[in-house]
């Protein structure tokens, strides 16, 4: 038995890598699904969006990069679908340079229209860029949504948005004057938004949006965070400073369940569950082997 424990302690790490690899990939290829329960924090976020009347305006701040894509991109895609279904208009910004591009990619992903171009009133509209079709609903760039791009300055960008949006974003991310778009009519400062949705993978992110936008300008904010970052923002949730929180892939899967848009996060839940189980098993085996062999050494 001692020999077995010693072998377990000196197990090649490539075997662990292989087990984790199989745990992560097999469920994806087999398209396995698992039922999940919705937590209170995700329900609060969903209810807040549901409570917004048609025509409301939401600021979406994408503060993440492709490294956090598996966790946050499904949330972005589901949220955009949810907004479109609810006929909520949205403006995208990024305190991270890659954020607005991630949002664009999410809109391309959710677009269901066939073809690349649509001719409308002599205008050539690029599908997925100028026009996004989800189910029965169609949204148009500049009228129903806008991508204002990235602005440097971290939390001071939020502070500056409090007094003027066009001062921070004079042009959208294509270089066209922001004020020329119909969606910007009546949108002058941060407080003109009905809700802020922040997708965050670190600094600047949810903490800064709560401290500067919620506390200062009293705009409700809901967030989607990576699983690593979520524990840091829980105090804001309990204090009511944060209107809902989606933590990691599970949070995204819960949101998908509530909206009915079963997609990437739900599909990945079995993989994540399997990986968690194996990590727990590894820790148990590692500890068991450690204590069994340590006791033996001490006796000797």
């Amino acid at each position, binding site marked *: 038995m001692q020999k077995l424990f010693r072998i377990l302690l000196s197990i090649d*790490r490539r075997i662990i890598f292989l087990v984790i690899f199989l745990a992560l990939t097999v469920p994806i290829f087999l398209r396995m699904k698992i039922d999940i329960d919705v937590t209170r924090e995700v329900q609060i976020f969903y209810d807040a969006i549901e409570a917004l009347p048609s025509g409301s305006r939401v600021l979406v701040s994408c503060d993440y990069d492709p*490294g956090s894509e598996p966790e946050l991109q499904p949330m972005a895609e589901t949220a955009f679908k949810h907004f479109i279904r609810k006929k909520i208009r949205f403006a995208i910004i990024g305190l991270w340079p890659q954020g607005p591009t991630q949002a664009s990619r999410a809109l391309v992903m959710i677009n269901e229209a066939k073809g690349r171009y649509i001719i409308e009133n002599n205008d050539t509209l690029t599908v997925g860029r100028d026009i996004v079709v989800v189910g029965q609903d169609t949204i148009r760039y500049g009228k129903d949504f806008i991508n204002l791009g990235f602005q440097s300055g971290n939390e*001071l960008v939020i502070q500056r948005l409090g007094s003027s949006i066009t001062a921070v974003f004079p042009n959208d991310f294509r270089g066209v004057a922001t004020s020329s778009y119909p969606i910007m009519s009546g949108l002058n400062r941060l407080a003109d938004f009905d809700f802020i949705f922040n997708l965050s993978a670190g600094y600047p992110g949810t903490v800064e949006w709560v401290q500067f936008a919620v506390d200062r300008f009293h705009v409700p904010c809901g967030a989607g965070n990576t699983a690593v970052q979520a524990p840091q923002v829980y105090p804001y949730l309990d204090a009511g400073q944060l209107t809902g929180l989606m933590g990691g892939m599970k949070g995204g899967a819960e949101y998908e369940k509530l909206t009915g848009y079963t997609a990437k996060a739900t599909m990945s839940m079995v993989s994540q569950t399997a990986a968690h189980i194996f990590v727990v098993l590894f820790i148990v085996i*590692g500890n068991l082997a450690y204590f069994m062999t340590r006791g033996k050494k001490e006796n000797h």
Partner: protein
Amino acid sequence: MKREIPLLLTAIVGFTFLIQFFIPHPFLRFLADMFSDWFSIIAAAAIWLGALNLIRVSLEKINKKESDWFYAIVTIASFLLIVIIGFFFSGGRSFQDPGTRFDWIYLNIYTPLMATMFAMLAFFVASASYRAFRARNAQATVLLLAAFLVMLGRTPFGDWLSSIVFLPKGWGISNISNIIMNYFNVAGQRAIMIGIALGTVSTSLRIILGIERTYLGGD
């Protein structure tokens, strides 16, 4: 004067932001907005400075043939490639739009590289947990148990396991996980936040009042 002017600027900007938070007078708001714009300009310039510094450091590395100097060539080549394609071959200001060459690089090179780097963490975490996560003492045991419960409680498997071992309703693994996150975690996070906030206030005041001068460099 070399030190006095930056100190004076810091004091003026710092006090303006401080006072306008409590007294939202239009003039103070105007000053705060102007200083915010200055910050954005400086931050944007810092991005360029960082990029140029990366080139300088990489060139020095190649010139001196330091260890792994070959990767410095890859760094410079990648940097120049993305800059040239972004500036000149991706439709001008709309270079970030889906379908441009810049977007192609972002989607097919940058995104997989970043995703791969972070995906590897899962493997290293599993390996490190197996080798290093030991219940050596009481504190480590508590940490280990909390990690177990949160890890299992954050997956549907936790609920399934709870039903298998007939845990009473409301006392399942996911419920215990939520208790840990909503009470123990929140208490700890609040303590850290308050500590950081107090530290930030005291350090900020020291900087604004010119007591703390290390940010100026030199002695």
